[in-house]
């Protein structure tokens, strides 16, 4: 079995690499289970601009794999290459053992795709959107009509079957797009920012539906800039920034490796945060000063807060929380995920 090496990654250390290889061997089972997606030194350039810079990853069947990064990190471009709709500038890519540039229709027949922007046909009714889409896969109407009803039920849209797409809410359109992507029963589902722009309730409904697909064995590949989404849905994540992979691992492993167990957030007012930060030195393992707050990374938030008070500092607000992928990202790039 090939280890999941990350190419061109300056932050990658051998300890992490060893632990990941071990994890992958444990979770993947026998060597007979092939990777459904393999990318090696994948690169995409637009003129002088390098959108995706020499990235490599392998995704085994049934895994839920996330590309986490800020806007412009190259996530969507990577997804478009995996989806067989954008030509790469370099490297190799294989989906179900096929090169998407040579076998575009074959690769795309294996996939379900949920694009970042909904592109439903608003002039057609909800149910017809599913039927028309299924026809692209050469599927007969005798299969598509009951399938459309079933997918609408799965997407909790049965009551809207005869409605115009225009009349649906944002969350409903998103669910319809997911239903549409499932019309060919794909084994791999690509989701580009599936919940961006949705309200919390709509996001949770969507997560629930995606979870069910994951349970049914569908390989999920998703991009997101929401760390909670990545934590909820992904078995494994690559953190991407400026077209490069900064780190790779399960959400818990990444947090363990790049952050502390807890984070104490203290606010002294935007004027004072930077000056007070110097006085906080030595509390916890390290501190990170943001414009609106200071983050103290520690394994014991309560104790760190006591120390802050012992130094005669009284923050306007304080909050102890567990570390998240946001902290991992901040550590790796020095920047926040959502700019």
């Amino acid at each position, binding site marked *: 079995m090939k280890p999941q090496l990350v190419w061109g990654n300056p932050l990658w250390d051998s300890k992490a690499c060893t632990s990941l290889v071990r994890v992958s061997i444990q979770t993947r089972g026998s060597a007979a289970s092939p990777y459904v997606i393999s990318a090696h030194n994948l690169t995409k350039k*637009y003129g002088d601009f390098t959108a995706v810079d020499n990235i490599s990853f392998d995704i085994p069947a049934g895994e839920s794999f996330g590309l986490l990064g800020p806007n412009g990190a190259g996530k969507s471009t990577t997804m478009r290459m995996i*989806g067989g*709709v*954008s*030509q790469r500038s370099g490297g190799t890519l294989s989906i*179900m053992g096929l090169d998407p540039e040579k*076998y*575009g*229709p*074959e690769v*795309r*027949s*294996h*996939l379900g*795709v949920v*694009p970042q*922007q909904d*592109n*439903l*046909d*608003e*002039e*057609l009714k909800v149910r*017809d959107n599913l039927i*028309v*889409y299924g*026809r*692209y*896969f*050469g*599927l*007969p109407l005798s*299969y598509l009509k*009951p*399938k459309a009803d*079933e*997918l609408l039920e*799965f997407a909790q849209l049965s009551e809207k079957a005869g409605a115009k797409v225009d009349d649906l809410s944002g969350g409903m359109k998103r669910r319809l797009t997911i239903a*549409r*992507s499932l019309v*060919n*029963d794909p084994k791999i589902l690509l989701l580009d920012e599936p919940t961006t722009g949705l309200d919390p309730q709509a996001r949770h409904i969507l997560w629930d539906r995606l979870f069910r697909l994951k349970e*049914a064995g569908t390989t999920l590949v998703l991009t997101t800039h929401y760390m909670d989404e990545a934590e909820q849905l992904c078995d494994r994540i690559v953190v991407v920034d400026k077209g490069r992979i900064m780190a790779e691992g399960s959400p818990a492993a990444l947090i363990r490796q790049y952050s502390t167990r807890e984070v104490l957030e203290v606010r002294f007012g935007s004027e004072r945060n930077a000056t007070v930060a110097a006085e906080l030195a030595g509390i916890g393992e390290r501190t990170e000063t943001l414009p609106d707050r200071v983050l103290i990374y520690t394994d014991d938030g309560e104790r760190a807060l006591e120390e802050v008070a012992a130094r005669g500092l009284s923050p306007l607000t304080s909050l102890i929380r567990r570390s998240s992928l946001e902290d991992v990202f901040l550590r790796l790039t020095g920047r926040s995920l959502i700019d």
Partner: protein
Amino acid sequence: MTSAPVPLTPAQSAAKARRLGSWYFAEHTLRVMRTYAASVLMYSVGTPLAYLFAMGVGLAALIDANGAGAFGGVDYLTFLAPALVASAAMMSATGEFMFPIMDGFKWRRTFFGPHASPLAPAQIAQGHIIGVTIRILVPTAIYFAIVVLFGAAPGPWAWVSIFTATLCALSFGLPLMAYVSTLTKDSGQFAAVQRFIVTPLFLFSGTFFPLATLPWFLQWIGWLSPLWHATELGRVLSYGYAEPAWLGAVHVLYMLATAVAGAVLSRRIFTRRMGA
């Protein structure tokens, strides 16, 4: 989910899409058109009735009263009808090859849904062309039937003008589709096409009077205009308008060449734009 298994493997789906993908997209295009089929039909009946009454009957009465010699010995309505049929087809094509293309690439990005399926961009372009061709054939046939009811299509081959008019629509519409495929924003180009291309072609393509009666420096509009070529052909087919055979061949070849060039360009632009 517990449902019947997908009746095709991914490889079978891909093989079907490679073979029939354009028709699958044409099916989509026609399903969308079905949502406004009622207005297309009303337009298909209303437009010929309005034009044939106003120009063919009203204006024709006046013109014919002053001698029909200028129109090759037929009455004005018979002279005019092939031009009206062809121009109606061309105008329908103008709309169908502009707005849905912009909608597909830009406004609602509807081309990008099928693009993620086994279909290739060139098939999406071809599918749209097939769908619009069918959508134009139907009202053109209706228009022709109404012309027949008005007694303005005397020749036995007049019905062939349904196809020459549709070819005219493609000859004008497909280069237009190629152009619109390159647009990334709508900054008045569509209105400009209507005002500065479609309207002059409608007026100066030998539609209402023989092209030869125009001053020489305006006649080139007719030679370049698919509408003139289709109108001339329509007249030959409808009432045996005398024209050398080579010119008939030029009409057909000119329209075919521009239509094919437009289709080939559109395919390329779709492929380039969607595969970036």
